């Protein structure tokens, strides 16, 4: 692919100049209107990400040698702010912040060459294949097997909760190469092409009524040994590689997003004349406090990274803080709307197309996906507070 690189002397540029340059680029290359049709939308997202990649305007945290911008953390934050302002569509697929650093850290030069650029350019859409029907929070219990035969692994088993699994070109998976009893010591990190023979992807209708997830079945699927990241049976430590800094900037984006959503809810309170209800005022004030604290937490994490090079204690708590907030906010909105609140979006009676009710249903996933809140609390208790391990739980 042709790369049109603009030569910029980053060191000579001030933060303000950098911001102005980024903003100008987004203004001149705006992604245009978001298509309603799902297939058109997919193509639209891919095309915009390809144009960003070709202009060297994406991958703010990625090293330059892998197609990224190699920005300092402070510049990444500026980039994220401008990208949010320009409403740049999020990349398709899931877990890019997990798989990319894993490949950068553990992959061979050939693997980096083969996957990183196309990932960033959205030529290949990636999805995470970790969870299984019997292995969610207890991931080391996974049962999908990979049997070595010459230069190939033969994969059999099933993955589930594969977000946007139907869109994927590539799955990054954990498979069992050791015995079941070996738990996390017999797990291998394998990258599997979605169009390999023997793969069946079945969309999974979720609680919202839509299909955001899929089940993925592997029936004697042949995967080249070259697709293995790291060594056989040593995939487990790779699971935790992720871009912590990217998460910090992401938390700021969420704070900005919920600021807007709360403002819309406050407008609704005013429209409905509920602002004089003392209980509603008190609840709104509490959400107002929390949406600000979300921003202050994110700012503090960013400050800590810039000053100390480490995210510190605030980063470990911000996810629980946000998930509790978003659930309670939507629960409150539905309750506040009374009968109008329980009308689904198909009905003419639905308030704002049923968005609050949809938010209520959709945020049930907030405290489950990517590790349940209970697991998060265990992690905080053990890793931040230093409380002893539950003897019933396996060692980390």
């Amino acid at each position, binding site marked *: 692919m042709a790369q049109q690189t603009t030569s910029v002397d980053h060191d000579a540029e001030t933060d303000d100049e950098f911001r102005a340059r980024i903003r100008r680029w987004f203004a001149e290359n705006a992604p245009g209107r978001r298509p309603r049709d799902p297939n058109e939308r997919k193509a639209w997202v891919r095309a915009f990400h390809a144009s960003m990649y070709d202009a060297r305007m994406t991958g703010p945290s990625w090293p330059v040698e892998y197609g990224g911008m190699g920005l300092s953390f402070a510049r990444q934050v500026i980039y994220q702010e401008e990208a949010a302002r320009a409403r740049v569509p999020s990349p398709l697929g899931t877990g890019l912040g997990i798989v990319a650093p894993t490949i950068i850290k553990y992959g061979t030069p050939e693997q980096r060459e083969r996957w990183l650029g196309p990932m960033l350019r959205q030529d290949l859409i990636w999805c995470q294949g970790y969870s299984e029907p019997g292995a969610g929070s207890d991931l080391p219990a996974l049962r999908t097997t990979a049997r070595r035969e010459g230069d190939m692994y033969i994969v059999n088993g099933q993955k589930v909760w594969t977000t946007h699994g139907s869109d994927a070109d590539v799955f990054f998976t954990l498979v069992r190469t050791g015995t079941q009893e070996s738990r996390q010591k017999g797990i291998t990190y394998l990258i599997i092409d979605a169009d390999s023979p023997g793969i069946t992807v079945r969309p999974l209708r979720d609680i919202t009524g839509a299909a955001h997830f899929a089940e993925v079945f592997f029936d004697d699927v042949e995967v080249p040994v070259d697709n293995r990241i790291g060594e056989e049976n040593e995939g487990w430590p790779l699971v935790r590689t992720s871009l912590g800094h990217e998460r910090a900037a992401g938390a700021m984006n969420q704070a900005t997003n919920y600021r807007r959503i709360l403002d819309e809810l406050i407008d609704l309170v005013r429209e409905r004349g509920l602002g004089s209800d003392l209980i509603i005022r008190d609840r709104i004030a509490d959400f107002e406090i929390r949406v600000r604290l979300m921003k202050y937490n994110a700012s503090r994490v960013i400050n800590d990274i810039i000053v100390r090079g480490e995210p510190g204690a605030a980063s470990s708590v911000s996810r*629980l803080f946000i998930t*509790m907030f978003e659930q309670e906010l939507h629960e409150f909105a539905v309750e506040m709307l009374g009968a109008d609140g329980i009308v689904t979006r198909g009905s003419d009676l639905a308030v704002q197309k049923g968005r609050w009710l949809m938010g209520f249903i959709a945020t049930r996933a907030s405290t489950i996906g990517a590790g349940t809140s209970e697991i998060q609390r265990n992690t905080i*208790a053990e890793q931040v507070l230093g409380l002893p391990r539950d003897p019933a739980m396996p060692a980390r």
Partner: protein
Amino acid sequence: MITGWSEEHDQLREVVRRFLLEKSNPERVRELADGGAAGDPAVWRQMAEQLGLQGLAVPEQYGGTGMGPVELGVVMEELGRALYVGPYFSTVALAAQALTACADTTAQAAFLPRIADGSLTATVAVSDTDLGFDTTDVATTAERGGGAEWTVSGTKRYVVDGGTAGLILVAARIGDEVGLFAVDADQSGVRATPVETLDITRAVASVEFTDAAATRIDTGDADAIARAGDLATAAFAAEQIGGASAALDMTVEYAKIRVQFERPIGSFQAIKHRCADLLVQIESGRSAAFYAAALLADGDPEGAIATSAAAAWCATAYAKSSRENVQFHGGIGYTWECDAHLYLRRATVSTIVLGAPTAHRVRIADLMEV
């Protein structure tokens, strides 16, 4: 986005924490509490002379170090953590900041250098019936004449360190207007009676003024008293988060060593999860207190809402953390010997000092024009 918690703040925190470890350990806190919570004059002098803590938020021209609300927050957090007993909150967070929020250079020159060098303790009394800055709750009156320039009469029911402060800044009514007056507490027109509250580590007094000689302070613009209230409130939120943090640390230490059913109680999820939730609340409160201070330091208009957000959140976090600390210590937590009750006392009284969480949420809803 505000950035600002720097390595210098870490160093300041470290110095204050080490000092308090020695001067404000639990045994010392109990001794001082038994003595009416007036504080230790020798420690007070060391704080001023060796560490310069009283002059932290005092401008350099008045003998201070000219730092501001953020640095004061760091110190207050450590004082709260150590349950420090003494007139720091009243003298520095309340009085010194009130003086700097006003426009009166004469009053500043008269009092701030003595506050900074540790020779003068002070406090502020705005509301008559509460510990807040609500100027609608002022029936105390000020009149011209009577030998002094002004005289003040009335009763402030709850004044922090009102029994020991050398200087009391009193809000009093002149007709429809509420003004701020400097009153020397060492005169016959001022009579303080200690008020026993749940918190034995912080002195509160009811102070009666009978034609007490007073000097009017030029507050400058009408918002000065509210601004002084915000500055004090942000500092106080930091103190509360320090206490909340200490109570959680106590819980965690105990949960690691206390064995029941042949395992440390901290290995049970019932304990773990509640500790994790407390940490979420406390760390968010720490962010809130810091940002409130930083926004006030910058004179940012968002400072008022941020301050009330920090106040409401940190008070709740401290109350919860101190109660959980008693609970997790079980029977031991209910004894006088265990320090848990000292935090419970401080936290519970702190909840209403400078406005209860509900009052701060009302203010936020008002400011947001919900």
